[in-house]
């Protein structure tokens, strides 16, 4: 187990180092200078140079890479060129939206997917199975922003039960915040729930064909008892993998939904920063996201070991 653990940590660190080099290089290669972007069409060269010096952009690339990585190791992610606020502060603020939204959406997805997947698997080939599979097929196919617009059209414009978007902040109260995140979370959850339900169903069906399930049935367990007691835990590995991927996706990839609901989340921060050539923000946020994805993968790996004792020994 310990060896498995350290091996995972090693690959985690290597991924982070490679990612930092790639991120920095790619973003530096893309043309466009942040200082001249900020100062617009009428700025003279000496004004641009004065601003570059103020922002530390007059140093060489290697120097800036070393500064950036060195700063991050000490928890300093630099200061945004355009917003003039520390990147760490901005990211922390955005995470108060993105993290709960990702958590909310994923919880909804799991709450929808598990009953649907289990039910469909236990009634394989039946009418219920066909209906559930049909609905999830649709859920996978519908683009989430389109679904989001329908939610806005119905719940915000027609019935006016929810705001069309925006986030009042947690200061306004927990339930007010949750309410503001509800439509976006539903829009995000639907496709994820559909994927999860399908994976859970097919994984369960595979397991239900295994010898040990037949043995369990032979010793007198009902179909349902065999499903809950023996099949479910063994069917969890692919499901956990998908949940891990979905969480990373929801954290970083909610950008379109954030735009539809004008939420101040991480995705929108990256989007805005790319347009404004706020390099330091883009670099640091992407690095953080890489870190988050790597960490989630790491935790999922550990979870495998937890559900499947063989993993602990064989590595």
């Amino acid at each position, binding site marked *: 187990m310990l060896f498995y653990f350290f091996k995972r940590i090693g690959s985690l660190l290597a991924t982070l180092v490679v990612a930092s080099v790639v991120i920095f290089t790619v973003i530096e290669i893309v043309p*466009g*200078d942040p200082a001249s972007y*900020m100062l617009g069409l009428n*700025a003279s060269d000496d004004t641009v140079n004065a601003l570059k010096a*103020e922002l530390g952009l007059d140093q060489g690339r290697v120097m800036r890479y070393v500064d950036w990585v060195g700063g991050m190791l000490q928890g300093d992610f630099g200061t945004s060129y355009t917003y003039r606020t520390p990147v760490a502060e901005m990211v922390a*603020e955005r995470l108060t939206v993105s993290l709960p939204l990702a958590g909310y959406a994923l919880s909804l997805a799991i709450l929808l997917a598990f009953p649907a997947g289990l039910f469909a698997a236990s009634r394989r080939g039946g009418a219920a199975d066909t209906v559930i599979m049909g609905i999830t097929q649709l859920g996978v196919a519908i683009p989430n922003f389109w679904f989001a617009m329908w939610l806005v059209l119905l719940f915000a414009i027609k019935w006016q039960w929810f705001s069309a978007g925006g986030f009042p902040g947690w200061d306004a109260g927990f339930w007010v915040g949750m309410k503001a995140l509800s439509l976006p979370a539903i829009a995000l959850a639907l496709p994820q729930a559909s994927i999860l339900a399908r994976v859970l169903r097919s994984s369960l069906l595979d397991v239900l064909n295994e010898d040990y399930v037949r043995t369990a049935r032979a010793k007198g367990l009902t179909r349902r008892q065999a499903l809950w007691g023996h099949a479910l835990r063994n069917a969890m590995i692919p499901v956990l993998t998908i949940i891990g991927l979905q969480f990373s996706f929801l954290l970083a990839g909610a950008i379109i939904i954030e735009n539809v609901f004008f*939420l101040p989340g991480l995705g929108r921060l990256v989007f805005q920063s790319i347009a404004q050539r706020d390099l330091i923000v883009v670099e640091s946020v992407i690095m953080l996201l890489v870190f988050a994805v790597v960490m989630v993968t790491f935790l999922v790996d550990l979870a495998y070991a937890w559900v499947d004792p063989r993993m602990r020994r064989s590595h």
Partner: protein
Amino acid sequence: MKRFIQVISSVLLMTFLSTAAFAAKTDITLGMALEPPNLDPTGGAAAAIDEVVYANIFEGLTRFGSDGSVNPALASAWDIENDGTRYVFNLRPGVKFHDGAEFTAEDVKFSLDRARGEDSTNAQKALFANIAEVEVIDDHTVALNLTNADGNLLFNLAWGDAIILDPASADKAATDPVGTGPFKFSNWVQGDRIEIVRNDDYWGESVALEKATFKFISDPTAAFAALMAGDVDAFPNYPAPENLPQLEADPRFSVVLGSTEGETILSMNNKSEALSDMRVREAISHAIDRQAVIDGAMFGYGTPIGSHFAPHHPSYIDLTGNATFDPEAARAMLKEAGYIDDLTLSLKLPPPAYARRGGEIIASQLREVGIDTEIENVEWAQWLEQVFKGKDYDLTIVSHTEPLDIGIYARDDYYFQYDNDDFNGLISAFNKETDPERRDVMLKQAQTMVSEDYVNGYLFQLAKTGVANSKINGLWENQPTQANDLTGVYWSE
């Protein structure tokens, strides 16, 4: 009878209660497509900065009115001395910054010296180039000594880039702006909204609104949904012209069409191989059907222009006749210049819809007369580097949004690469001229000159398409400068 009186009195009571309940609102939520990167108008060019702070939080010595006129602000009056080379400003007494500091002539000296100083990061530093010295005469009098006579000074001082800051709070203006205006900065939730509240110690007429919120919604569909759901009360620059007819038909909203300072042009690189020949530039101008571009790219909102000049300006002359839509003439001119169906030009398009949608239409119009274009979509940062600085382009589409900016044609090494000594002489004479009549004549000459030299393809003046709750009054109809001046805004009951 007794019953009748009861009914009457209860009806009266109800009416009384309902009018009390419907007393005019004193807060407003405005939608904006772009969030300002920071709130210091003296340290960046982003229009969104001024759209929040101009006239609301910060004020300068002079300011623009809604009609583009230059009016007194922190300076109540001024005298022009020494043949226009010295301006003496009388400052308003009793003006306080939001942190309680008193506004004096020292603040004016500090702010203007900061803007024109060596380390200045003011995006419009050129506005102050002619100021030789800022002289404090007493607490409430300040004189600007100029290098040359300057007819633009009062106009230049009205820009958002020339607002007056307090030395104690100037460095924090980006995140915590402290000004003298009728509203105080209150809160900024980055990515979501900025809130400002009424400044009860304001020197001028008290404003009707107690609180204003600027909400940032970049997606056009989301903007529409936010208006319909009542999340925002107004969208002064509504980003989706395609929805305007629908909003216009809705009694809850009023749609206000005005003009902006944005001359939208097909910029041409006057030193690229083919375009250095004026016949080719003229041919391109005749190949363009402006109305088709306005209809196709802007859903019909926009005024055709024939030169680099705003139609609402008093000195405007209509020069659209210099470049009528005439594909036959365009073909003939190209033939004369030696290009028969073998001219390929690059067309670099920045992100705004006027450029991306307009570019496709213009490309097809140019193809009709035998010019092929290679369209390349670029981000703004890339555009600045390649087109604006590198001059690595043949054609591009940009809206030049600064007020009265025909002077850019006289600038050395500007990206149009237009080089005309007569024009340069005219602009430098204009900058020194203070007589309104002669200035008017010169502006007309300048318009004619760039139009007849076919420096660029002149397309249309960008429209300001505002949508607001129909009970809101006092929002600016036109946009003489980038601002959402809330001083005159109020709700009717």
